[in-house]
């Protein structure tokens, strides 16, 4: 009941004045259907002998998987359900993303994990790299050694070596040879995906916003599971066109006064969307997300005319991702500042999944930037995937929105 109250009070304010109900783009449905349609696509692809590589993180150079004619697919790890099962093997006070990822694998409830021939992990944080050791007992896992001081020459060299190693692992596991031509084509295709993804997320530079944070999250989350990456690009392009068309007819989400929130910090997906949904239930809009599931990775498109070794180009690309596992990590603050300007942000929420030390510590720097340098309201929220604190979080988020 509380939800309806908040929702009516806020998001529909604009539409209600005009005596309308807020319209959502009809094409959103096609994204909701991806999961069911996909099962079949994956099954058929496997029967044809197509290989699947499961990935967990934005640092995974998916171009190498694509270039091998295989399917790179993001694995499940955003839901609460398998966490209890994961806690049989993992400590309780570990980040929910790691526990959920492991739980899905251990209980064989993630179809994409099930279909995967190889899992690619990276030494991003302590919890993940140790979890991968346990995961290796279930499926073949290859862990890349990700250096964490990105601007050192030795780091780039190590990471380039790691990409070469991954190429060999993929070639051996999938019994293929990755040609330079295929790799350049994969780079092009990945660029296309990032370009369209960025275009979709950039729709909300418009004030009032054109698409809700929940709808954006659902769309970008679902499309990550799509077996056919080219099809994903087309689907996003069609959605962008539809949103623009609706905007031209005067449809928008919220109004000039709706608080525009930027969500930063740890990644979110469907099942772990509670902060996004709470903000929007309480009358705000998450117009942008600076996290690896959101805007961050769309910044790193590759120059396709660059004729150097493609593995070196990719090494540079992936080492530029400003995740809190890197030290120092000024790229995140620079991106945040730019996004706050571009998206006309009124307040910043920094989400930290419990036991994620790197994002938790880095919140200090984010708070300094947002509160002291930019003078905007800021709040850090530390939580997990469960709904046990939903009502206390609602108080905090409502009070935060009241500050704006």
């Amino acid at each position: 009941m509380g939800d309806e109250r908040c929702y009516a009070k806020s998001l529909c304010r604009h539409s209600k004045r005009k005596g309308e109900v807020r319209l959502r783009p009809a094409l959103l449905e096609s994204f909701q259907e991806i999961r069911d349609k996909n099962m079949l696509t994956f099954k058929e692809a496997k029967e044809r002998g197509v290989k699947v590589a499961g990935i967990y993180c934005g640092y995974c150079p998916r171009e190498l998987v694509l270039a091998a004619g295989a399917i790179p697919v993001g694995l499940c790890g955003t839901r609460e359900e398998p966490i209890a099962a994961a806690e049989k093997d993992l400590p309780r006070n570990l980040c929910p993303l790691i526990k959920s990822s492991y739980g899905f694998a251990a209980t064989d409830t993630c179809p994409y994990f099930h279909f995967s021939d190889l899992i690619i992990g990276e030494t991003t944080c302590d919890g993940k790299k140790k979890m991968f050791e346990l995961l290796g007992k279930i499926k073949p896992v290859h862990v890349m050694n990700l250096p964490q001081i990105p601007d050192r020459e030795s780091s780039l060299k190590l990471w380039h070596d790691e990409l070469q190693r991954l190429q060999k692992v993929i070639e051996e596991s999938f019994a293929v040879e990755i040609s330079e031509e295929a790799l350049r084509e994969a780079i092009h295709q990945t660029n296309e995906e990032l370009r369209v993804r960025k275009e979709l997320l950039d729709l909300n530079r418009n004030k009032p916003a054109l698409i809700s944070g929940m709808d954006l999250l659902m769309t970008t989350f679902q499309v990550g599971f799509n077996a056919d990456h080219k099809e994903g690009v087309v689907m996003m392009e069609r959605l962008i066109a539809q949103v623009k068309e609706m905007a031209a007819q005067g449809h928008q989400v919220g109004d000039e006064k709706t608080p525009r929130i930027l969500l930063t910090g740890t990644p979110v997906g469907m099942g772990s969307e509670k902060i996004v949904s709470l903000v929007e239930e309480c009358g705000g809009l998450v117009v942008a997300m600076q996290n690896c599931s959101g805007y961050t990775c769309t910044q790193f498109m590759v120059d396709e005319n660059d004729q150097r070794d493609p593995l070196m180009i990719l090494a540079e690309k992936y080492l530029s991702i400003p995740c809190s596992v890197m030290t120092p990590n000024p790229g995140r603050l620079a991106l945040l500042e730019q996004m706050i300007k571009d998206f006309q942000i009124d307040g910043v929420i920094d989400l930290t999944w419990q036991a994620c030390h790197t994002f938790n510590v880095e919140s200090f720097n984010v708070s300094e930037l947002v509160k002291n340098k930019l003078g905007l309201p800021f709040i850090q929220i530390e939580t997990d995937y469960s709904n046990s604190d939903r009502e206390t979080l609602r108080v905090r988020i409502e009070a935060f929105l009241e500050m704006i």
Partner: protein
Amino acid sequence: MIVAGVDVGSISTKVAVLTPEKITYKMAPTGWSPRETGLATYQGLLQELGHSEDDVDFVVGTGYGRISLPFVSKAITEITCHARGAAHLVNDSTMVIDIGGQDSKIIKIDQKGKVLDFVMNDKCAAGTGRFLQMIAAALGLDVAELSELSRGKTPLTLNSMCAVFAESEVIGLLAAGRDKGEIVAGLHQSIARRIASMAQRMGKAARITFTGGVARNEGLCSCLREVLGAEIIVPAECQLAGALGAALLARDYLS
């Protein structure tokens, strides 16, 4: 113009009614039904004043029960309401510490009582009114007796900050034959330190308003004074700051 603020907290319900002449308050234990208690306390106060619900121009609901009150014109969080109420009760204060029944919050405010920043306890019940109630019960005392008992006693060190483990620790100390007053003094000190570490995240404040039911505990106040090195002011209406703030915001809303 008549406006009202209804603050339905986890332990008690507070109502403030503002008429052009005066401010009046009423308080009642919330019990198990925030909806009924909220309505009954509100109607009770109006009746005492010789008014009906129709005479009231705007009602703001706050506290955890705010979402269950059908008669309010607008629901506003207790953070915003406490800030507004505290600024009205105490001049020149830049920070509010509110310790309520189930949470504690530190709010940085401007002169008008607008929220600039806030933190809330998010890990557990330790350092809340409920926590003090539990410990008092374990000691066979009423919460109101805690302050007097700790007066002049050397605090024992308490390490547990989880409400349940702290209770076990207190029971252990009692079994070891330690003085109740020293235990309570230790309890106040550990709560004050916890609150102080939250308050220090908000920066320095020279003059702090302390509200919520727990502010009536003088022993805890003097610990806070010591730990924070700041002036701690407890207004007589410390438990009513939320309801008052809600009523003031109702008035702001109309004008």
